[in-house]
Each structure stands twice: as C-alpha cells, then as structure tokens.
C-alpha cells in the first residue's frame, strides 16, 4: 500500500482525514485509486493533461515529483501539499 498525506485543502474530500492509504504502482495509479473512493479529488490535484496543477506539490518521500507516471513501491509515502498561491 502507498501511504498518502492529504493536505487540509483536500479534507472536504477525505472526510477530514490527513492520512490515507491507496494501492497502485505509480503516482497516477495511486491517485486513481484515491479518486474511486473520494470522487473528484484527483482532478483538483492533476489537470486533464495529467500535469500536476501549478499550486500543488507532490513528493515521494523527500523527493519532489512532477510526473505522475513515476513508479511507486509498496510502503512508499506520497505527500500532497498545497503550495504557496497568493492571498
């Protein structure tokens, strides 16, 4: 399983939970799995061209990730953050 950190901006989808688990061999697959259980969450992070939205940040562990095709291994931690976006 992939351990996912959900930022406050997405708690309306996760029912207030900041930690979730998802299955998948890549970031894309993990987000797809998340979206099946929390409909709509993926599109607010990733656009229709599979790009990470400009003010969202993804990390696998401490490594920044912009390509959602990046492979994930069982036990990996996917951190989702809302980055700085102005006032």
């Amino acid at each position, binding site marked *: 399983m992939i351990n996912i950190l959900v930022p406050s901006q997405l708690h309306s989808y996760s029912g207030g939970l900041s930690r979730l688990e998802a299955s998948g061999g890549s970031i894309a697959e993990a987000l797809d799995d998340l979206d099946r259980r929390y409909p*709509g969450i993926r*599109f607010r992070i990733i656009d229709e061209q599979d790009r990470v939205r400009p*003010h*969202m940040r993804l990390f696998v562990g401490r490594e920044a990730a912009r390509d959602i095709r990046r492979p994930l291994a069982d036990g990996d931690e996917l951190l989702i953050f809302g980055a700085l976006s102005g006032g």
Partner: protein
Amino acid sequence: MATRTELLIGTRKGAWVMTDNGRRGDWRLEGPEFLGQIVNHYVADPRDTKVRLIAAKTGHLGPTVFRSLDGGKTYKEASRPPAFPKSEDSATARAVGHTFWLQPGHAREPHVWWAGTSPPGLFVSEDDGATWDSIAGFNEHPMYDKWVPADSGTPDGPLLNQILIDPRDPAHMYLATSTGGVFESLDRAKTWTPLNQGVEANFMPDPYPEYGQDAHYIALAPTKPDRIWQQNHCGIYRLDRPGTRWDRIGKAMPGEVGDIGFTIVPHPRDADTAWVFPMDGTDVWPRTSPGGRPAVYRTSDNGASWTRQDRGFPTAQGWFTVKRQAFCADDAAPLGLYLGATNGEVWASADEGGSWRAIARHLPEIYSVAVTPG
C-alpha cells in the same frame, strides 16, 4: 411587490445568498458556502430554480462545478467538470484553469447547461451540470489559436466569458471572449463566425479587425432578442440584427466619464433601456469609478443619450468597480437593480436606478451577483 427576491453572490472567497422580506427593503445575508473557494459564477436555473450551479476553484486546487438540486440546501460536485480533451502534446495542451460563466440552456432544453472557461473553452452538460463535454465546434476550430490566442487576455487569463442563447431558437447562440470578441453560431455551437464589425480594438495594429476585440459583456434585450447590447474594453455598443455592424452608443456618454466598463444590464421589459457602470479606462487603466464617484448610467433611447444615477453612492473617495457578472436586474415593477462591488459591498436600487443603498458590506471581492428567477 410581494415576491421574495433572492440574490446569489459569488466572491473571491466563497458564495453568499441574500434574501429580502418581499418588499426589497429588509435584506438578510446568509453564508458563506464554500468558504475560500474562488466563485466566478453562481446561477439558479430559470427552468427549475431548485437547480443551482457554482463555478469554483481555489488558489491551490483545480476548477470544478458544485451543483444543488434542492435550492441550495445541499451541494454535490460534478462528477466530470469541464475539461479539454486529452492531448498527445502535453507541453502545449490546454487545461481548464477556471470556469468563468455558467449558462442555463434554452427553455425547450431542460437539464442543458453551457459553460465558458479560461483558457477559452465552450462546454455543455445535458444532466444539470453533473457531466460536461468539450464542444469541438469552438474548442477545436481551425481558427481557435488566432481567435483566442493563449498569450493574451485578462490578468486571470484569456476568457470565454459569456454564452447567450436566442430565446426563439436554441441553435442560435452568441459567445463573448476577451481575446476574439463576439462570435455567432446558427447550428447549436457546431460552427462559429466572428461578429465584430464596427467594434474597436485600439490595442491591435488594425483597430477594427475581424476578430481580436475584448468583449467584456453582451446581453440580449429580453423583449427584442434581435437587439444585442455590448460593454466592450473599447466602449459601449449596440447591434440590431440582422445587421452586422455595431454602433458605438457610448460616444454619447460624458467625456469625463467615458464609456469603459465591464458590464451592461438591459431592462427586461423595455428594449430601449439599459444600464452601465462606468470605470476609469484612461492612462494606466485604474479600473475604478471615474473620479472616485461611483454611478450607473441609464439610457432610455437606445443609447442616444445617457443619464447619471448616483443618489446614495459615495460622492467622493469611492473607488470600487463592478465586474462582468456582478450587475443584474430582477423583473419587478419598478425594476430592482443589484450590483456587487470589488470592495465587497452589495448595492441595490428598488426604483430603476433612481437611488441606491448598500445592503451588504465587508464581503470579499465580488465576482458575480445573480437574481434567482421568479
């Protein structure tokens, strides 16, 4: 007037609702809904006012549409919000930044809604906003890159900022864009033609191009849908179809005020009457009330002359302006007018603009005000 009036208010930080006591005198403010979401448009369906759609995004999160089927008591998110088709070339592929305009479909097409986005995109829903499809007739048009180039537009990006439908014919539609001007379709959005003759674009090498204008707002006269009013980046215009050349009726505005603004509101029963809220489009374009003295201007003779209506507004040091979707009318007699200001105030007139008072203050910057149809 006994009918309760309801205003749906979209702001930079969420949505609010105002309701009156049936006499348009005592207003109650409720909200916020979706606090922190950037709400560009909040609209009730005239065919079934229990259906309401909200175009939203946040500073971080991507765009979506929230929908209520019970008059605003509960909301669900669209299961497939407006989105461009997946492209092979991800470097140049378009993605919807935000939905800007929500348009209920024709009276004979229940459950149909249209949406305009930034970057400019036209989308349709056949199920009250639950799922949306890209309209290839505009979004994939061979002229798309010339009509609505990605490198120009408003500070929030280039816009397809408006969609109008002829009440006599659901296949007859108009679009307003911030980078191409006005376009017309006679076949329900399959094909489009520019409709900009006579409209200035003083920021282009050819100041009267076939397309390239910045059409801030267009409105059909409800009792005479062949009449189109336009508040453009370069003035106030009127077009009577089947004519194709716009007439710059803003030339009759006072010179010290000018004819720049974001929006125009036609009278629902009098095709010769409309209101504008001018802003300062001189010098560096402050986009504030000219001279710090807010006012609406009314024409009752097709734009041949304009009358200032400022009773109740600040007489000095009032620097707000009114954005595209934030000025509207009810259908009462006398007509009620409502405007939401960039300073978070909602102003109302119950006497066709003769006098104004603030009915809400301290809201976030207001992007849209819409009357729930009676």
